[in-house]
């Protein structure tokens, strides 16, 4: 599995297809995050926009290998494992982006609530930010896994499904991403730092289920 992860990570880095989603994320942060803004608000934004970026990274990682090369690696390890490796690499890339964003946001933001009356401890805030980022990366990866091959193979359907899925995952009631981001925004208004652990657990379960479905389908759809 280590060799597969290494191979998939090298594919992602060398293909340079990671560039568009990373630029999108940087641009979204540039629009939504200003220095001196309340820290929890900015962390909420950083987590929310990571969700579509994570879904996009999954699409990049699962489509960057030509089918014949995929068959070579798949025969060696089983196509399910090969697919799992590409999903894990995408998730790791998304989490890495999120952690970097949390670091930057924590440094440049003001340690206050939205109304600037209550101080917000930066350490606890960045912890909450990391949890929210993790929840959004996991849910984004789940959306990505269900809207790329082998589940949806034609780009004509897969890309709109990815965009719609990412949007719904952010706004639908009961979504762990919405819960995690909402906890940060509410915490910012009340001047208290939330600990959104439950959304992370729910998002992890959803991501595991989506991954299991996607990996099981690798040998069942036509090549």
């Amino acid at each position: 599995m280590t060799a597969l992860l290494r191979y998939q990570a090298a594919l992602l880095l060398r293909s340079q297809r990671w560039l568009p989603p990373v630029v999108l994320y940087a641009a979204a942060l540039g629009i939504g995050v200003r220095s001196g803004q309340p820290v929890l608000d900015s962390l909420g934004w950083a987590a929310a926009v990571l969700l579509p970026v994570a879904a996009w990274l999954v699409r990049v990682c699962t489509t960057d290998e030509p089918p014949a090369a995929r068959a070579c690696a798949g025969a060696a390890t089983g196509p399910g494992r090969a697919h799992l490796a590409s999903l894990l690499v995408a998730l790791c890339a998304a989490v890495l982006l999120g952690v970097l964003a949390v670091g930057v946001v924590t440094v440049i933001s003001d340690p206050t609530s939205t109304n600037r009356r209550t101080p917000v401890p930066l350490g606890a805030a960045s912890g909450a930010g990391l949890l929210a980022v993790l929840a959004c990366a996991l849910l984004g990866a789940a959306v990505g896994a269900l809207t790329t091959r082998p589940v949806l193979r034609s780009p004509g359907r897969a890309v709109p499904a990815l965009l719609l899925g990412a949007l719904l995952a952010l706004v639908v009631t009961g979504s762990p991403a919405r819960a995690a981001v909402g906890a940060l925004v509410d915490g910012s208004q009340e001047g208290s730092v939330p600990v959104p652990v439950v959304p992370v657990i729910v998002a992890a379960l959803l991501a595991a289920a989506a991954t299991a479905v996607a990996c099981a389908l690798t040998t069942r759809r036509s090549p």
Partner: protein
Amino acid sequence: MGSEVRIRLDGVGRRYGLRGRWVLRGVDLEVAPGALIRIEGANGTGKSTLLRLLAGLDAPTEGRVAGRPRTAFVPERFPAALPFTAAGYLTHLGAVHGLTRKAAARAADEWLERFGASGHARTPMAELSKGGSQKVAVAQALLAAPELLVLDEAWTGLDAAAREELERAVAERTADGTAAVFVDHDPRRLAEVTDTTYTVVDGALALRAAAEEAACPGRPRVVVEARGPAGAEPPGEVVRLAVSVAEAEGGAYRFGVTEPRSDAILRALLGARPPWHVVSVNLYEAGSL
């Protein structure tokens, strides 16, 4: 030497989509270690689907596949659109096949050299010719000595020297206990060393008639004369590889062997405990044995 993991297809059927037509149906096939099996059939009869099932790339719609040897697959056309050098890609794949990175890098260089592509080791895959990238695909499958080798028209696109080298490599691997299943348009491909030929007809697998088998044109054979310790019988491994075994004067034996397996039989003779002494190696045209 080889493993004892064998793959067996029991009543395997495959169709794509819920109401698609059956590409294959009722296929029973067992591939023993060391077996070399050829699959024939007209275009679109399901040869490639059968190979994908054997390689584990497809799951059967009905029936089951039992046993999963360490498998390597060579696709018909290998794309150059990978962001690696040839050696870099092979090192990654060698590691994926279970080698350490050091061993993988060494095996990558060895196999590229065997296929006359060592000059392309540091060439980006995107700059390789069609034949060059096919050599990489073939090397990828051979470098970790798999237990099951699945070749889907692997010879297509290779130059003459590389085609011969691949035949030799496959014969060598099967002599070492690797099972190999292949599809190729050239009826003479590995003809002398193929154990069984199956034909895919209407989605079912049929054994090819023996009469057709005999019509295969022969190719040069090699006669190896060797002498063992006094009174020793030829090693079993050597007898298995040989087409004919004849006792010669002075306790020596003459082994007739097909050209692709000549290296393997010499290795078996010299590697026997105690080793045999090779007296002579001669080339005979087909039919003279």
